[in-house]
Structures are given as C-alpha cells and as structure tokens.
C-alpha cells in the first residue's frame, strides 16, 4: 500500500506569543509536528504494520521543516519530501499549499493520504479537503477509527461529538481527529535509522509550477494580541454569601442570567 502523510511544522502554542513589527516573533520558540498530524503519522504506521507498504511524509515549508520530517521518519515513516517554497514565495495561503501538494501527488501513486484535520497555528483546516478536490478523490474529515479491507474502507468520524460510520473506498484522503490513536515516541534506534532514510527536497520548478500558479487568494492585513483581561474578582466571606453575591453580579453586572 502506498501511504502518504501530509504534515506541518507548527509553533508550539504552549509558547508565549510575541508580536513584533506585525508578525509573530519566532525567537527561540519551540517547534513541533502539528499534534493532529502526529495522529495521521501514527495511523500510517499502524496501516503499514497491517497491510505492508511504504510510508512517505510530505510537507510544504522551508529548510527548517527538515527537523520535523526527520522526527516522522524516526517514528516509522520510510521517506520524506520537503516541498520547499522558501525561496520562491513570500506569502502563501491554504490555496497555495493545496496546489503545491496537488502537483506533487500528480507525480506520485498513492492509495491513501492522511493528514491532521487542522493545524494548531493557523487553525483553518482547509488543506485536506482542498487537496482532495484538486486530486478528484473523496475525503473524510475528523476520523477517529479506520479499517481497510482490500479497496473497502470503513471509517468512524467525529461530528461535533456524534459518531458517523462511513463506508467508502480507496483511493481516499482522510484527516485525523484526536482519539484516532496514541502517537508513539520515536525510539532511539528509530532516531538513528531516520538519519539514513531518504529526504528529498523539491522546489516549485521541480513540480512544474510557477510562482503565479500558486499565488495566495487571501492576505493577512493585521495580527494582534487579544486585549489583556483585567484580573477577575475573587469573592470573599461565607460560602453562602459568596454564592448570593455571584448570582447578583451575574444578574445585574454581567447581565448573563
């Protein structure tokens, strides 16, 4: 089975966010594999253990993303592609990323593409469905369970807490939701092996794309931090009185009940 995982290097949102000159300052912030993409990588490894095949991880980004690709290789992926747009593009959006990926997949045979359902930095969750549409394959988002039998695929997906059981067939693109599996940590031998696994870099040229083909369809005009919240009011006195005061505040001050 030809298994592909589309992944993203993201800023760890547990880090403090600092904005300087209108952009988020990277500083020494920690970068990670987007947590939802980790579920996708783990699911790919489980698929390979069951059905054999090869796992290829792909990302769109800059040179820095090599580190996260190596982590995926250390977890158990077989090879990696960095679609490096650093030199060609200043700004891209979800349209850009999906189009670059689509051109990559038009040159590679796949049975299944796995991705995270959303990245924790940008949080738009567009690239998976956009890519599936460009490749004219079906997709299922926010999956929590998947069984593949020959060409037949049975999936459970999370729909705002309810579960949809879906039947479909390969080839398909799926996006992972929390609960799909428990991603493994790279083992020490895995990390050693990952250093020798193939990691290839491709630029727009190699994908038969020009800068104009992937120009963003949206732009960010401003980034800002939310207004700092005033410290709240911790109530005092007997519990009974605190509760009375609280209900009163909610009624008259905040007007929410």
């Amino acid at each position, binding site marked *: 089975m030809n298994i592909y995982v589309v992944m993203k290097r993201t800023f760890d949102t547990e880090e403090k966010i600092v904005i300087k000159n209108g952009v988020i300052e990277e500083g020494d912030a920690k970068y990670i594999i987007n947590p939802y993409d980790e579920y996708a990588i783990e699911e790919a490894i489980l698929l390979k253990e069951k059905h054999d095949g090869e796992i290829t991880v792909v990302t769109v980004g800059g040179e820095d993303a090599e580190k996260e690709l190596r982590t995926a290789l250390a977890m158990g992926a077989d090879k990696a592609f960095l679609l490096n747009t650093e030199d060609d593009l200043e700004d891209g*959006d979800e349209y850009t990323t999906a189009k670059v990926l689509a051109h990559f997949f038009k040159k590679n045979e796949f049975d299944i593409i796995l991705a995270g359902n959303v990245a924790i930095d940008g949080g*738009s969750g567009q690239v998976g469905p956009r890519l599936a549409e460009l490749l004219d394959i079906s997709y299922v988002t926010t999956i929590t369970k998947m069984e593949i039998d020959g060409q037949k695929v049975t999936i459970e997906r999370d729909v705002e807490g309810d579960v949809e059981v879906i039947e479909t067939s390969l080839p398909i693109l799926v996006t992972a939701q929390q609960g799909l599996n428990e991603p493994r940590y790279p083992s020490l031998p895995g990390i050693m092996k990952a250093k020798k696994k193939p990691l290839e870099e491709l630029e727009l040229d190699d994908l038969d794309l020009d800068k104009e083909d992937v120009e963003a*369809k949206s732009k960010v005009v401003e980034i800002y931090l939310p207004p700092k919240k005033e410290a*709240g*009011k911790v109530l005092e006195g007997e519990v009974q009185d*605190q509760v009375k005061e609280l209900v009163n505040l909610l009624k008259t001050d*905040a007007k929410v009940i």
Partner: protein
Amino acid sequence: MGRKVLVLGEVRDGAIRHVSFEAIAAGKVIAEGGEVIGVLFGESVNNLAGEMVAYGADRVLTVENEKLKNYSSDGFTQAMTAVIDQESPEGIVLGHTAQGKDLAPRLASKLDSGLVSDAVDVNNENGNILFTRPIYSGKAFEKKMITDGLVLATIRPNNVPALAKDESRAGDVQPIEVDIKDLRTVIKEIVRKTAGGVDLSEAKVIVAGGRGVKSADGFKVLEELAELLGGAVGASRGACDADYCDYSLQIGQTGKVVTPDLYIACGISGAIQHLAGMSNSKILVAINKDPEANIFKVADYGIIGDLFEVLPLFIEEIKRELVKA
C-alpha cells in the same frame, strides 16, 4: 452595486441551527447592499425557508432530495454547484461547524477561491471586507481578506450577532431540482452521543467540570445547574481522560471551541490546553478549591471553595431567582 451572497442554512433535527442566522448577518456585511440568498438542502426543508427570510435573507433556494437527508461532501457539493451555476454568487457564508469545515474548503478549491475559516467578526473597512479570526488557539488574532475569487467564509457560532427576527419580512422561496448521484462516501449509521437538548458549541451557558469533579457521578450536580440555566455541560480533557464523561463534551485545543455568554468552570485548573477552547467566553466564573489555580487569573468572578459545597447553594439561589421572576 453590492455582492450577491449565498448563505447555507444548516439543518439539524428538523430545525435550522442558530449559526446559520448569524451567517445571514455576516452575509449582509459582505453583500454591501447586494442580495443575501438563503440556501437549504435536505429531504424536507421548504417549510424552514421562511425562517431564513425572517432573519434577513432576501430570498431562499431549496433543494429537496432524499439523498441530502444527511450531509455528505459529494451530495452537498453537487447541490451547491447547481445553485452556484444558477446564481453566479460573489460570496458564500457557512457556519464553522462540522459541516461547514468539511464542505467550505472543497467549494473554495472547486471555485479557485480564497476562504477565511473560523471568522469571529466581519467588517467593511474602507470598502474591504475584513474578517477577524483567532490563530494560535486563540492566543492571537488576525484580520484577513480575500484577494481573489469569491468572498468565502465560515463563521464561528455565537460570535457574529444574528439580526432581529422579523416575521413580517417577505421573500421568495424557490425549490430547485438537482439530480444527486455517485456518492463516494456512504453513511451507514449515525451514533448519537450528545444528549438531546442544548448543543455545546451554540450554548449560551456552559457549566464545565474538570478533574475536581472526581467521578462520573459528580457531574450530576453540574447537569442540574446547566439545565436550570438552559445551558449545556462541558468538560476539560482531564475529566474526559479520567472517564468521568464522554469525549464529546471535551472543550479545549483538542475538543470543542466554545464562546458562550457564561462559562462556569468547576474544578478546572485552567491549563492552556483548556483555555484555548473557552477563553473568549463573555463571562467566566471559576469555582475551585485551589486558590493558586491558573483559572482564577482569567476568571471574571471566582469562588475559592469545594464545588460540591458551592454548586448546591448556587442551584438553590438560582431557583429562588427563577421563582421571583
């Protein structure tokens, strides 16, 4: 001038979800005086069209087809494509719900357009339609605009206020026939895990419990309060991991993102993971035994105490208020 904007009304349990009315209000801003057209898909939806008009749609298009009874990406894309072919809209708005998240990126891709996902506000600033959306799990915000193609957006529930409902408004309702075929994904079963009643992502009041609730049984008192306030019960990841409640109740970075008017956090420490899902709540009340808990740093009102002592008193007090009212 102005734009022609489609707003997809989302039908759940035979009713239009409130976020769709909020989407009409967003559609009005995008339309800049142009036409806002409600769109409804389902097995039997013609009778719901009037409500979209009452909330501000100028007219409504419906596609009734048994294959549209449940949402599927293929089915809804085919229906939407037929509507788009007929109307040639310049904008489309959907709710940022499971359905909107699944469908909107595909439509954007098909239409070669940009898409702003998860907008919490939309404004016309000097002729530019600017969307505000949270990034980095709500720790920052960006203002974004579409530069090419249709103005496409999904809006987060409970943020853009809906227009006042006006039953006296009139608007045409036009049913369209669409042949829905070749669905590549088939829904075999829908397992309802969410208890009937108030939808967590659209709830105006949420009573949420964390590890401090200590057991599944402990959630009963939260449920009682939620019901009294016409709200829903939520939970932190810790409470879900400990099996006190189903993951469908989880609020946080992984889990649901909510923006209620009132969020009552009970026995929740306030980990960043959790704050990412609820920090934009309008009023946050924290009840926790630990005076050092992080949740008190973000709460509007805090009570330091045992939730099992505080909540029953809270419930009594609310009941008294209800009797008064």
